[in-house]
């Protein structure tokens, strides 16, 4: 019997993997992509909860739709930023982008 907990643990694993990607990859694209994995993990949670707990409507799925929409927008802007970063510095390695200091 697959319960809510299984899905949530799966979601937690995916979230952790995404987080690891965000924290430890040099490539800006991978970092962005890893956040997408984290967002997907969240969506998974929302939908699972909607199924197992949310008896009075489809709010969880609706929320997931909104998350997807925002995530799409975010990817669009994020990739735009990455491209412009690349244009300016000829690299997208985040180690080179450290002027946000002092």
């Amino acid at each position, binding site marked *: 019997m697959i319960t809510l907990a299984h899905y949530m643990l*799966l979601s937690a694993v995916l979230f952790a993997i995404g987080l690891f990607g965000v924290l430890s990859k040099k490539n800006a694209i*991978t970092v962005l992509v890893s956040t*997408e994995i984290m967002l997907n993990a969240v969506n998974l949670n929302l*939908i699972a909860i909607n199924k197992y707990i949310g008896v009075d409507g489809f709010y969880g799925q609706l929320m997931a739709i909104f998350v997807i929409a925002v995530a799409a927008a975010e990817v669009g802007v994020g*990739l735009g930023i990455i*491209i412009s970063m690349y244009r300016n510095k000829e690299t997208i390695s985040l180690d080179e982008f450290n002027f946000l200091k002092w």
Partner: protein
Amino acid sequence: MFNGEVIAFAIVAFLLIFSALGVVFMRNIVHSVLFLAATFVLMAVTYLMLDAGFLAGIQLVVYAGAVSIMVVFAVMLTKRSDLHETNLFNSLTIPGAIISLLVFLGLSWVVVKTPWNIAERPLVDPMAINKIADLMFGKFVIPFEVVAVLLLVALIGAIILALEVKPQK
């Protein structure tokens, strides 16, 4: 115990985790992106298992379709001659791994410890899409419109950011 549902979940979950790990651990960015597409597709499968067909559709269209393609474009636009070793770890790998592990453990702990208020019967409704539509154009119409505006703004923003800057004379 090992009914079809469990086996399907096990296989999908394994593949999902595997492909997600692939996204992170591949040293070539192109491989990474391929695994990403796989992750998105597998996620859609998971949604289907959760009786969220509409969401699965959206997942396929938006993520597996649009986002993956966009990422590929981005890779292409920022590529260098040699694609090997394009997706390396930085100096924070070990602390990052520890933190990620701890986050996972924390989340798991919450998941396990929380006495979830499970409904007696899972919410399964073939007319789900209608209900969602009602909500979206009824109660949540304003967030819906806001998201629409957000997408428009993001679109314009992305264009402006990616636009070639003319060298000033």
